Structure formats: C-alpha cells, structure tokens
C-alpha cells in the first residue's frame, strides 16, 4: 500500500496517556476518541491533522497501557501510517490487529521535519521525503505480521494459524 501525507514529528516514549488521556476512556466511539488524540502534548493536533497524514516518532512509541483506544484514536483522526524508531510491544500488536499500518525506521524523526510531505510504500518499506528528496528504508514486517495483514486482521489470521496448528 502507498500512503502520502504530511509528517507530524514526535520524540521518544510517546505514551498511551498522551495519545488518548484516560479521562476520555469512558467512551469507545472512535470519532470522540480522535477529537482528543494527542491533546495533552499537542493541543492543535486533532484540529490540524488531515486525512492521510503520517506520524513520525522516536523510540518506544505507544508505551504504557494496553488501551486499543490509542491506535483507534490515531487511525480515526485520519493518520494513514505511523513510523517510529521502535514501538512498545502492546501498541505494535494492537495496531496490526486493528489495521493501522506501522513501520520501524531508526531515527527518521530526526531527519524529517513536521510538515514535510512523505510517500510511504509499506510493502517495500520505502519512505520517501518528497519535500527534501531523501529516501529511508524501514524494517520490513516479519513474516508472521505480514500474514496477519494479508489475512485482513487478527481474527482471520489467527483462525488460519489455529487450523494449521490443529492439522
């Protein structure tokens, strides 16, 4: 898949409490969650973000709680893809499970600026900065993650694996 949009740059250790503060977890409505996405860190985010935009962050993105509301809020805010130096384990899992494309690319957040236009080919793992002309290579998905994506999400993939395990 190819995504194109402008970059939002963030630092290391962006936690699930700033992605979606717990005071808004009394709802599961994706639109309402999106309207509070990143608000404690970047109050402008939810009003300025445009469909297709891309988050580019440092290490350990999504650390903290297991709330699936975090990738949901990002996805329904219009973000097409998240690139980070590394992801927290549960956030990584949740994103794949709900179909939010994520890519690991070391130090991208230091080489790309907020507002740069990026084009990302998730199959090839290529991130092109249209604004600066720079090209970055992301770590390709491990095979089993590709399996989940190709199966159309966790529920389908896990059923496939389950059947294989039974055989």
């Amino acid at each position: 898949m190819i995504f194109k949009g402008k970059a939002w740059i963030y630092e290391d250790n962006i936690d699930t409490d700033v992605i979606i503060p717990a005071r808004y977890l009394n709802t599961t409505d994706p639109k309402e969650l999106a309207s509070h996405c990143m608000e404690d860190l970047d109050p402008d985010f939810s009003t300025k973000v445009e469909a297709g935009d891309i988050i580019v962050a440092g290490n350990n993105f999504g650390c903290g709680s297991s709330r699936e509301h975090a990738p949901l809020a990002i996805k329904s805010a219009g973000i097409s893809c998240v690139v980070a130096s590394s992801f927290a384990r549960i956030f990584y899992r949740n994103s794949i499970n709900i179909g939010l494309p994520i890519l690991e690319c070391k130090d991208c957040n230091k080489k790309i600026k907020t507002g740069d236009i990026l084009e990302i080919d998730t199959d090839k793992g290529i991130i092109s900065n249209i604004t600066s002309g720079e090209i970055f290579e992301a770590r390709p998905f491990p095979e089993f993650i590709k399996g989940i994506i190709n199966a159309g999400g966790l529920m389908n993939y896990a059923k496939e694996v389950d059947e294989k395990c039974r055989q």
Partner: protein
Amino acid sequence: MGMTITQKILAKHSGKDFVEPGELVMAEVDLALANDITGPVAIEEFKKAGGHKVFDREKIALIPDHFAPNKDIKSAELCKTLREFAKAQQIKHYYEVGRMGIEHAFLPEQGIVLPGDLVIGADSHTCTYGALGAFSTGVGSTDLAFAMMTGKCWFKVPETIKFIYHGKPNPWVTGKDLILHTIGDIGVDGALYKAMEFTGDTITHLNIDERLTMSNMAIEAGGKNGIMEPDEITLEYVKNRAKKPYEVFRSDPDAAYSDIIDYDVKKIQPKIALPHLPENVVDVEAVDNIAIDQVVIGSCTNGRLEDMRLAAKVLKGHKVHPYLRLIIIPATQQVYQDMIKEGITEIFVDAGAVVSTPTCGPCLGGYMGILAKGERAVATTNRNFVGRMGHPESEVYLSNPAVAAASAVKGRIAHPKEVVCCDI
C-alpha cells in the same frame, strides 16, 4: 540447550517440548482478563466476529475496577456492557463492586491465577502474576476477543534478560525501590519485547506483595513479562488459595539469556521517579524540597496489605500536612477488611486521610483524586506520564508506601526516617 521458565510455560501451553526465542506459537490460555475499559471493546469485537459462546466460562475474568463504582453515566454504560455480557455468558469470574478489587491484586489473592499458568489480560499490568511463576502479559482488546472465542493467543517467544539481586535490602527499601532502580538503570524501553526474570537471594527476603509490585512494573521497562521462580514463600501463599491444580516451572541452568544484570541491593536506598517517566529515578534523599499537594497510596502496584501496614507504621501518631490530601485506596475488598481488623484504617483516619473503596480511580486520572493545573502528587502507582493523574500540567512522583506516607506528613517529598525515629 535448556529453557527459561518463560520458554517452558509457553512450550507447555502450545503443546511443544521446546520453543526458542523468536518462534511464533499459538498457545492455550488458562485465563483471559478484561476490565470495564478494555472489556466493552473486546465484547464488541467478539460479537462482530460472530462469537456466540465463550470458549470456557471458567477461564475468563471480567472485573469492573477502573471507573467503578461508576464515576459518570458513560462509565456506568461500560460497566453495564460488562455485566450483561458476564450474565449472558455465565462468566464465572465476574465480580461486582463490593466484592471485587483491582484486577491484578484481586486475581492472585483469590487464587484465580497460579504458578505455571498462562494468563493474558487486556490491561498492560497483567504482567503482575509473574511474581507467582506464571507467564502473564498484557494484550489488546482484539487479542482478548479472539481468546474469548478460541481459548488461544499467539505469541512470539521472547528472549529473557536475567536480573540478579544480591543482599538484604536496607531499611525502608522495598520491592518497589528495587524495580524503580531497575527501570532507572535500563530505561523505559530497556526490556522492549523481552521477558524479565527476577532472581537472586534478595528475592527470598521479599514477601509476595513486594514481589507482585516488582513484576507489576516490568511493563514500565517495556518488558513482555516479569517472572520469578516459585519458592517456599510462593507455595505457602498459593496453598490455601488455589482453586485448581498448578505446576511449578523453573529455568534450566543452561538456559540462554540475552543479558544478565547484577545489582548489589546494599547500595540501593529508597527511590523516587520524577515526572514524567518511570525511568527518571533518583534517591529520595537526593531530592530538594519539593512541596506536594496530594498523596495516593493504592493501585495494583502498592495497594496490598503489606503496603498498608508499611504506610501505617509511618503514619501512626502523625497528622497529614494541613494543605495536603492523603487518599488511601486498598486494592481489594479483602485488604479493606484486613485493614479494619488490624486497626490500620483507624490509624489512617486519625491521621486525617480519606480511605476509599477499591478502585483504580486516580491512578489513571479517572476520579477520586484528580490533580489541578500545577499540582504535584506522590503516588505509590506505576506511571507518571504527562496528565496521568489529571491536568496535563500536573506532576506525579512515584515511590514506595513508606515514602508516600512520610511525604504526606511533611507536605514535601520526605524519607520515612524523617518521620519515624527508629528504622524498621
């Protein structure tokens, strides 16, 4: 090549003799857990995927603890979703307000999670049960929905970092200080994707409550789980609680570790994590005069009976600082009752604290003690992220219960020895 305790439990539950780090396995779960925040999302996924009946009504736990007793209409609706599903599916481990506790304190206490179990929970602190020698880890709501349907969950077998703690802890140093020290040392992503195995003679000096505190915070270093081999103290603890048979696993002497880290516990003093990351750890004594507005003693990290006993030891005969709120939240109904029986509640109330029914409440900025702009809290909880306990410009400092209690008396961050004349 031998296996670590983590590998062994994963192998056993996926029907294999041997698994190696990096391998993908589909494993059977002994318990799948969700709460009033993550449960409704999982229930929605379960229904969307055409789920009619859960795989085993005895292997699912649904616990309304985060915003319960219901803090507002919306959270009342979430709890209602959980309750109705539990009723319709006849979920065995559903516990209503008044009979429940914060999930990670409640399940071990009631003997619902046991050594050798494989437990997943749609809550990141599910790693707590590692203290009993179980493999337990946090997952998302979709993972949980799948587990509720099939009884299974997929895992990548993690590499393990072994942490060896040597020596007897200094006065006022608890399991909380050991884990804060560890997170301060390796950082909030120091164990990303990895199992943390806590060993060494120090662990034998720790009671179960302190061990649960250590495993609880493995996630704060990015760890997948935080596990300890069961010993006599563990077996004594589970003996009269276990509701089903269990199995004790231990790491092989030739198991492979990605790293081995040693700590001389005699060099560790009471710690505090400064805002806004659990890795910003310093000695309590190294902190300047920081005035605080609120102290919270509770949560799945430090809301157990030993924590309350420790806080009471410091607070006995003292008064809470005039302009400070001390909020004490026993983690379970049992702790609440034991506190009353032991006279601990009286000590707290006499000191001028408020004592609440079990709930997560302020730990995640839900209710029962939200911070205003610019306010500071010392809390025995596990996270001090921006806005975690209220306003984005408020601050949370993480400590053990004795430091929290001493700080409540002094109105600033304080070492317990400033309040109690003789060291314990």
